[in-house]
């Protein structure tokens, strides 16, 4: 009697782990010619549109002997590397390594031009100005590394609308006493220097002092310039309730009255010099409109310009090279949707689920493969187009807003991640709807359309624009913002000008949340529905 041996296949059993699933999905992606071509087309569109737009942009000023090419001048750079405005009227004298300066400010008034453009020659430059002080007009005392624009400084000041402040190195701002300055309610300001540390104090009566802020100005030279200053940023008319357009207006003048000026410590010169600190292309009145008078210990200073961080408006920003992201995004969405709907159309989904009955894992594997492929393609495109676009912009006369290597890496990686997560969102919506056209439209209308409505000026009110780039997946484009918005500057911080209400990674997290939600719903629907 013979024993029957049961048949065993010579082939080893195939695994059913996640790795096998990933391999299966990668094979599907790589062997469908349309999807590979689509990915390449996406990369080409992203690079091509970036090159075309940067190549066709021009920034120019009338050529001068100093600037024969006529390229737009770059604004001065602050100690932190950012572009700054640094134009004001300065009454100064040298200060050694230790000392203090105390003044009383009794008045801050201002006048402004309602339109840009300087006065005709021979005309009194301030003749047609309207009385009124700008919210961030400044008058006070300052200790500055030297008299050149962009050098390190710390200042105590009174402002038009924001009370007494201490500001240093352009980006730092601390609030002191609130309220408007006047003869009946003067403000006492004091700055003390000891080495690299400058402390700012304010007081309402000259007897009781409050520390407003402490500035560490590393590398401050032994002899600095210290004294009184006045400056006023230009008047900007945000008259239109529909934001998005750049604000119009003209330069403004601030006039401050100071008395009880007292100095302690090392002041080698002992006498005051008045100087108009200027920068090319600043929104300031000409030097003849500014100046100072001293009579009986009372100083009256008139200054125009601003000491503050500047936006990217004087040149170009990195995000401009990445305009092709939107074209790449549409390609990614189309591929992401087809990655699942094509399986339904061809009936392959039944084979897929027969081979791997855990449907959630199948969708997870699809999402992982799609995200990885898209991320790599997006990163390749970004790494190509950012330097090429920057080069073309420079050739065409644009100074480029200085950006740290870290920020530049965040923008490139963030753009690739944005595309990858948008692809996952498209995949999930495709799994939910099973219809290509509907799913593609839903995702594009969810990401591209809100962005478009937010940047087109005059379509929606400013509040609605901001809301759109806060809650919709379009919030993720905040990842491309390279110029920060500062509360101590009045500017048109709108999505149309490249400023987003959410921080870069927070905006990206909004898109991730949408993708996670869609993926969750898609998994539940896949499990419950028949294939």
């Amino acid at each position: 009697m013979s024993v029957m041996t049961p048949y065993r296949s010579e082939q080893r059993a195939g695994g059913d782990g996640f790795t096998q699933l990933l391999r299966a999905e990668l094979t599907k992606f790589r062997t469908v010619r349309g999807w590979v071509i689509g990915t390449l087309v996406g990369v080409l569109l992203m690079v091509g549109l970036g090159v075309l737009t940067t190549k066709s942009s021009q920034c120019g000023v009338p050529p001068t002997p100093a600037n024969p090419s006529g390229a737009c001048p770059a604004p001065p750079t602050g100690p932190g590397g950012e572009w700054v405005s640094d134009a004001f009227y300065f009454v100064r004298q040298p200060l050694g390594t230790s000392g203090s300066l105390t003044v009383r400010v009794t008045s801050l008034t201002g006048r402004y031009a309602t339109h840009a453009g300087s006065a005709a020659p021979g005309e009194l430059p301030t003749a047609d100005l309207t009385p009124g002080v700008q919210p961030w007009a400044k008058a006070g005392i300052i200790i500055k590394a030297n008299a050149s624009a962009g050098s390190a400084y710390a200042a105590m000041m009174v402002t038009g609308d924001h009370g007494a402040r201490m500001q240093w190195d352009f980006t730092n701002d601390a609030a002191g006493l609130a309220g408007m300055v006047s003869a009946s309610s003067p403000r006492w300001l004091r700055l003390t220097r000891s080495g690299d540390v400058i402390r700012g104090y304010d007081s309402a009566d000259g007897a009781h002092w409050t520390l407003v802020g402490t500035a560490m100005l590393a590398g401050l030279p032994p002899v600095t310039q210290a004294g009184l200053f006045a400056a006023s940023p230009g008047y900007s008319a945000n008259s239109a309730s529909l934001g998005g357009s750049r604000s119009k207006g003209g330069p403004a003048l601030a006039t401050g009255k100071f008395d009880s000026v007292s100095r302690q410590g090392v002041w080698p010169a002992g006498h005051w010099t008045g100087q108009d600190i200027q920068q090319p292309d600043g929104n300031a009145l000409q030097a003849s409109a500014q100046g100072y008078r001293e009579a009986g210990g009372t100083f009256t200073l008139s200054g125009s310009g601003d000491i503050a961080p500047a936006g990217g408006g004087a040149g170009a920003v990195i995000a401009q090279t990445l305009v092709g992201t939107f074209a790449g995004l549409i390609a990614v969405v189309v591929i992401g949707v087809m990655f699942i709907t094509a399986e339904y159309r061809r009936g392959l989904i039944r084979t897929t689920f027969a081979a791997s009955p855990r449907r959630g894992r199948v969708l997870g594997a699809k999402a992982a493969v799609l995200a990885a492929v898209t991320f790599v393609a997006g990163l390749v495109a970004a790494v190509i187009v950012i330097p090429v676009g920057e080069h073309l912009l420079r050739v065409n006369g644009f100074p480029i807003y200085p950006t740290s290597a870290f920020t530049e890496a965040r923008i490139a990686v963030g753009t690739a991640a944005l595309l990858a997560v948008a692809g996952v969102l498209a995949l999930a919506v495709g799994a939910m709807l099973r219809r290509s056209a509907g799913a593609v439209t839903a995702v594009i209308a969810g990401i591209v359309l809100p962005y478009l409505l937010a940047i087109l000026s005059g379509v929606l009110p400013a509040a609605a624009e901001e809301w759109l780039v806060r809650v919709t997946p379009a919030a993720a484009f905040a990842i491309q913002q390279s110029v920060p918005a500062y509360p101590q500057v009045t500017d048109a911080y709108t999505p149309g000008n490249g400023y987003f209400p959410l921080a870069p990674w927070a905006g990206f997290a909004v898109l991730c949340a949408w993708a996670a939600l869609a993926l969750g719903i898609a998994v539940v629907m896949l499990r419950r529905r028949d294939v």
Partner: protein
Amino acid sequence: MSQALHAEWTKLRTVAGPGWLMLAAIALTAAVGAAAANAVTCPVRGCQIDPAKVSLTGIFLGQAIVAIVAVTAVSGEYSTGMIRLTLAATPRRWLVLAAKAAVLGTAALITGAVAVLASVLAGWLLLDGHGIDPAHGYAALSLADGPVLRAAAGSALYLALIALLGLGIAAAVRDSAVAIGAVLGLLYLFPIVAAVVGDPVWKRHLDQVSPMVAGMYVQATTDLRSLPLTPWQGLGVLAAWAAGALVAGGLVLCLRDA
């Protein structure tokens, strides 16, 4: 021709999708328009808004849904194989496309008319309470006003032309996902690129050839001088795009195997 028209009308009518999508287009167009009108605030100094354009903001979204209907009318036939039956029944392929264009264009025109009427009605009801009133120099939104009537009628025509554009592109590329991606890319990418281009001359040219931006000039009722084209010229640009897409789609349909 009448039989081809009848066949296309039957196909459009008896599939559940298009009807619901057209209703969704009307509802979303009116809802977005009402939301935009409701969000308007007008400071005392006066505001620079175009009441008709604000009421018709919903067209931005409504056009995408009309495009779905148009694209699926062609690509649906390819994905199910129905196209072979259609072409067997009507061997003159140009006729099939013409019949589809006539039926879809008419359906989109009617949908657009209803959506625009609902939007203008919402604008008329809401804008008055948001500072768009005689005190700020605005007359009430009324279709009896020539420019407003042009904006309304032009917007309905705009949606019909979007349907033709979608139809032509879908006939050319056949796959629904690719076709709708191409249509939406064509509509939405031009203004985004134009916003980044630093050269005003280039920006103006981009706006002049953009199917969406130029097409929507027909909605403008104020500050017409600042537009690079007149309202009807703008709609003409979109019509040219739609005609080009239909010709391309027709050529592919006639020359390529189904």
